[in-house]
């Protein structure tokens, strides 16, 4: 019969329509029809979708305890590897004689800027950083009317605490914490261990 295909399709659409409302779902149940899919629209700003833990949106710099104790040592590897070249680092900080300044036993960058209007959230900087100093954020509500001012993140804006990292990405942060813990120089043992070759 010509038109049967069209009618079948229309019946399917009607079923989907009914199943979006409680009353319609009841009708479907009573008449013994298979229930369709529920409404899937999320009423953004009022309700927000839960995003995955790995969801990434722009990098940030991690510090431990206090903001001056940042993990970044200004090695500039991320600056080199960033595909669109949106990281800009000045440093490491030096004194007048040209010796690198250290805070908490580490060199640190004088300036660290990321132009987020260029950054494509690719996560390569995180992959290449040997010090786990840079991680991906998940804040996505940062629209701006300016091309440069607000979109160019400076060091102050990029710095976020390790607690924050643990809060947004618990799994990843715990892996990183373990790795850093293993790297930490062990307190010097009282008895210097005999080198194996000395035997």
């Amino acid at each position, binding site marked *: 019969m010509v038109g049967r295909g069209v009618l079948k399709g229309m019946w399917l659409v009607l079923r989907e329509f009914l199943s979006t409302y409680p009353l319609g779902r009841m009708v479907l149940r009573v008449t013994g029809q298979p229930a369709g899919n529920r409404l899937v629209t999320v009423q953004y700003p009022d309700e927000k979708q839960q995003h995955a*833990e790995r969801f990434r949106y722009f990098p940030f710099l991690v510090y431990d305890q206090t903001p001056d104790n940042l993990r970044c040592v200004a090695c500039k590897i991320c600056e080199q590897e960033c595909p669109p070249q949106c990281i800009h680092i000045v440093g490491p900080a030096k004194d007048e004689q040209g010796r690198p300044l250290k805070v908490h036993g580490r060199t640190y960058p004088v300036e660290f800027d990321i132009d987020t209007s260029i950054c494509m959230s690719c996560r390569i900087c995180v992959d290449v950083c040997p010090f786990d100093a840079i991680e991906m954020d998940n804040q996505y509500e940062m629209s701006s009317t300016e091309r440069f001012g607000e979109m160019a993140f400076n060091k102050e804006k990029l710095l976020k605490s390790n607690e924050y990292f643990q809060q947004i990405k618990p799994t990843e942060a715990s892996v990183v914490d373990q790795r850093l813990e293993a790297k930490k120089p062990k307190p010097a043992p009282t008895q210097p261990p005999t080198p194996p070759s000395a035997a």
Partner: protein
Amino acid sequence: MSATTAETQLLEINLGPQHPSTHGVFRMIATLDGETIVKLKPVMGYLHRNHEQIGEGITYVASFPFTDRLDYFNAMSNNFGLALAIEKLGGIQASERGEYVRVIMAELTRLVNHVAVTGFLLNDMGAFGTPLLYAFRERERILDLFEAASGSRMMCNYVRPGGVREDVPVQWLERAREIVNNFPIFLDEFETLLTENEIIQQRAKHVGVLPKTLAVNASITGPMARASGVNYDIRKVDGYSIYPKFAFKVPLGSVGDVYDRYYVRILEMRESVKILQQALKDIPGGPAISPKGQAISKAPRTFKPPKGEAYGRVESPKGELGFYLVSDGSSQPYRYHIRAPSFINLTVLEDMCLGQKVADAIIILGSIDIVLGEVDR
């Protein structure tokens, strides 16, 4: 003046470059005689982003995020193609689990692409909204999987030479199994809505026929070639990665019209579901990336493949996607070229449109399945 002596003029019209029916910034200059197309000139290049040149100025691994933006519906397959080329160039072995994850991702991508393109095609035919939204509802579930594994829904940047960047999270495989097992239900629903629909059959059958010989001569690949009856699927003929392990068929069309192209895609999705079910069943444990691949993605600049060239290709949802790399022994490719399926499939647009009505040109273009990011690069 009688009707026979009436003088008619040819009319030249522009479709695009900014027009919803052209799927991006693509322009067709059509010459019409009445409503019949007598000449059609495609104009492309509006979205040219210098992808290949950029790729020659950065390390091999740094090109991965840019390949996401080629065909932005299929980031995972694009990554996969480049990873295969780099593996060939540098002689890298992929880990077993990595291969499985990559194949799972590539096939999920095929589902995403095919549901989306079918939805868009129906939109072009005038079925506004309904099929497209049903398709996107399904696509959304798979994109959630991508987000959980890679951190991004579309710009995944996930596959690396030697495997994948990080293993899939816990519970991910269970979620994937559930979605894949429920997918045929959606496909049945989708087919009820579309396949038997008389209006669609009237609209799409014998429209934009691509003969088998022309498809071969113009090196058309992917679902378009298969709809014309060309039995050519890189997964079968090249057998890259671990595809030879899976049992699946290559669906073929007979006429090569718009309807066949639609239906071949539906059948392909069913085959993809089969591959996915097998892969999700057999996936082994172990590391998701081989040690060498891990070293490369941690320090891209240290990867200096020996002098030579390599061509890695995958059956992307749109056709044969190939990456050609020439190494001069440094950490950056000397030459980086992409064989983009959308671009090459687009070359037969005029041949398919000649003699058809102008409204048909829209659905013929829709049935080719192009993404301008890949056409222009």
